[in-house]
C-alpha cells in the first residue's frame, strides 16, 4: 500500500466512524434549535486557562451580547469537557449555555451535530446508489459481454448514449420528472435510483470489456469444454475477473454521488428541510449568503472535498492493478 492510499484509507475511516458514531460523537440533536445562538461562532476546546495554567480540556461558552449585530462574547466561565456521560463521548454541563463545537446555523442549530448526522444521509445515499449502479452494470455488462452480437451492440449503444450526456442533467431531469415534494425516505430511494441510472453505464462498459476478453481465454474455454453452463462460467469464472475494476469504479462513483447529492439538494431537489444532509446544509448556508458572516457554515463543503480527496487517494494507484493484462 502506497503512502497516498494509506492517507486515503485513514480519511475514509474517519468519515465512516464519524457518521456511524454520530449519536455518540455529537453533543446535540441535529434538529434542535438554540434560540439566541443563531450563527454563533465555533467554540473550540481550550487547554490553557485565563491565568496561564494548563487544565484539562474546557470550553468557553459564548453568549449573545448584541442582537442586532449578532455579536457573541465569551461569558468568562470555563466549563470542563465531561467524558462518557449520558451516552455521549464528550459533553459539557450546559447551564451556562450550549456547546456548539463548529458554531450554529442561521436557525441556531449545532453545525457539528448536523455535519455528522448529515454524513450519514449523504454517504449512505451515495453508497446505496453506487451499489445499485454496480448491480445494474454487472448484469447489463455481463450480458452484453457474454452474449455478444446484437444484444451487445444494443446494450452498449444505450450505455454510450447515457455516458456522453452531462451526468448532472441526466440526474436533474430524472429527479425533476418525479413529484417535486417528497419525504426524506422517498427522496433517499429516488436519489438512489436516479444516481444509479446515471452511473451504471460506466460499470457496464468496464464489465463488458473484461467479460468479452476473458471469455475467449483458455480457462474459460476449458470450463466450457468440460460442460459448465454459460451461467456458471459467467458467475464463477468471468465476473470474478472484474473485481479490481469494480473496486476502482466504486472509488470513482461514491465521491461523484456525494457531490451529486450536495448539488441536487443545494438546488432544492434533494432532501427536504429540516433533514440534515451535506447538501441541505449547503443550501441553508447559500440562501441569503449567510456564510459570508459565518464561514463555519461552509463546513459541509469541506466535508465534501475531504470525501472526494479520500476516495481519490484511495483509488490513485488502482489503474495499474485493474488492467494487469494490458
Amino acid at each position, binding site marked *: 500500500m502506497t503512502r497516498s492510499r494509506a492517507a486515503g484509507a485513514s480519511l475514509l475511516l474517519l468519515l465512516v466512524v464519524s457518521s456511524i458514531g454520530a449519536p455518540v460523537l455529537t453533543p446535540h440533536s441535529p434538529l434542535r434549535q438554540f434560540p439566541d445562538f443563531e450563527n454563533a461562532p465555533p467554540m473550540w476546546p481550550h487547554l490553557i486557562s485565563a491565568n496561564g495554567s494548563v487544565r484539562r480540556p474546557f470550553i468557553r461558552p459564548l453568549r449573545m451580547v448584541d442582537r442586532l449585530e449578532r455579536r457573541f462574547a465569551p461569558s468568562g466561565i470555563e466549563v470542563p469537557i465531561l467524558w462518557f456521560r449520558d451516552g455521549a463521548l464528550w459533553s459539557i454541563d450546559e447551564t451556562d449555555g450550549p456547546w456548539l463545537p463548529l458554531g450554529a446555523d442561521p436557525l441556531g442549530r449545532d453545525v457539528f451535530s448536523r455535519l455528522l448526522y448529515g454524513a450519514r444521509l449523504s454517504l449512505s445515499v451515495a453508497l446505496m446508489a453506487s451499489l445499485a449502479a454496480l448491480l445494474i452494470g454487472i448484469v447489463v455488462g455481463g450480458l452484453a459481454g457474454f452474449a455478444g452480437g446484437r444484444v451487445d451492440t444494443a446494450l452498449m449503444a444505450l450505455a454510450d*448514449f447515457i455516458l*456522453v*450526456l*452531462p*451526468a*448532472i*442533467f441526466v440526474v*436533474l*431531469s430524472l429527479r*425533476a*420528472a*418525479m*413529484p*417535486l415534494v417528497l419525504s426524506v425516505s422517498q427522496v433517499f430511494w429516488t436519489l438512489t435510483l436516479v444516481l444509479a441510472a446515471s452511473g451504471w453505464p460506466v460499470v457496464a462498459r468496464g464489465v463488458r470489456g473484461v467479460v468479452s476478453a476473458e471469455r475467449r481465454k483458455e480457462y474459460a474455454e476449458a470450463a466450457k469444454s468440460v460442460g459448465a453452463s454459460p451461467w456458471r462460467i459467467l458467475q464463477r469464472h468471468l465476473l470474478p475477473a472484474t473485481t479490481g475494476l469494480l473496486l476502482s469504479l466504486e472509488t470513482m462513483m461514491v465521491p461523484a454521488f456525494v*457531490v451529486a447529492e*450536495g*448539488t441536487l439538494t*443545494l*438546488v*432544492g431537489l434533494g432532501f427536504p428541510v429540516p433533514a440534515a444532509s451535506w447538501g441541505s446544509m*449547503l443550501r441553508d*448556508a*447559500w440562501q441569503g*449568503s449567510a*456564510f*459570508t458572516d459565518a*464561514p463555519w457554515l*461552509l463546513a459541509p*463543503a469541506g466535508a*465534501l*472535498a*475531504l470525501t*472526494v*480527496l479520500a476516495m*481519490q487517494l484511495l483509488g490513485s494507484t488502482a489503474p495499474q492493478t485493474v488492467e494487469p493484462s494490458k
Partner: protein
Amino acid sequence: MAPHFRSFILRRLAAAAGLVFVVSSAAVVLARLTPGDHLSEFELSPAQIAAERHRLGLDRPLFAQYVDWLGRLARLDLGESTRYPGRSVAGLIGERVGNTLMLGIAALVLATLIGIPLGVITGRGRADPISVAARGGSVLLLALPPVVLSLGLLFVASRTGWFPVGGLPPDGDAATIVRYLAMPVLSLGLPVAATLERLQSRAMADALRHPSVRAARARGISGTRVIWRHALRLSLTPVLAVYGVITGTLMSGSFVVEYVMTWPGLGRLLYDGLIARDANIVAGCAATGAAFLAVGIFAADAALAAADPRVAEAR
C-alpha cells in the same frame, strides 16, 4: 483531404446529428410524461384547465405532440413559454445562450492555458519546486468540484470585495462583463485545469519513453526542444481525446456555477423550466444543450483525427 479522414468526419457528423435528435426527443417525451403541468398550481375550474390545455395542445396524444414539436423545430420555433407567459422559448434561449457559451469557452481556454503547460512541466518527472507545487495543486483542486469551489470563491469574493458576488448586469461593457465573469470562470475552469494537468502529465511521461523521442535525444537535440516539440506533439493525442468528454463536464459544472453564482445562463433556464413544469423550455434547452455537446464532441474528434491520422483509419 484523405479519404479516411473524410468518411470519418461524415460519420462523426451523423453521430452528432443523431445525438441532438435523440436527446431532444427524450426531453420532449420525458417532460410530457412528468406528473402535473404548469396549470396544476393555479386554482382554475376543471373547464378552464381543459380549455387552456386544449389551446396549448396538451390534450392531444403524446405522439402527436411530439410530431408537432419536431415540425416546429424545423422552423426553429420552440413554442411558447408557460413559465414566462407571452415569451417564446426561442427568445428566452437566445437571451441566455451567449452567457453560457461565454462562461464555458472562457473556462475551457483558462483550463487549457493552465493545465497543458503545467502538465508538460510536471510530466518531465523532475522534483523541482514548480512541479511539486503544480502536482499538489492539482490533487487539491480535483477534490474541489464546482459546487464546492463556487461556494468557496463566493465567500472569498464577498469577504474581500475584489469581485462581484454573482449575477451579470444586462447592459455591461466589456470590462464589467470580465469582472462579473471572473468568479464563475474560475469555479468552472480550475477543476478542469487540474484534470488536464494530470492527463497531460501522464501522457508526457509516456511520450518521453517513446522510441522516437529517445531517438531525437540521441541525435543530440536539446532537452527543451525535445520536450516542447517532439514529446508534446506525441502526448497531445491522448489529451485531445478527452476534450469531447470535457464538454460534458463543463456543461455539468456550468449548471452548478450558474445556480450558485446566479449567472443568467441556459442551465438556470432549464432548471426553472423543470421546476415550473414548462415542457417547451425543457425541450428547447435540452435541444440547445445537446447541440453544444454534439459540436464539442465533434470538434474534439476532428482535432484528434487531424493530429493522429490513425484515429480516422481505425474506425
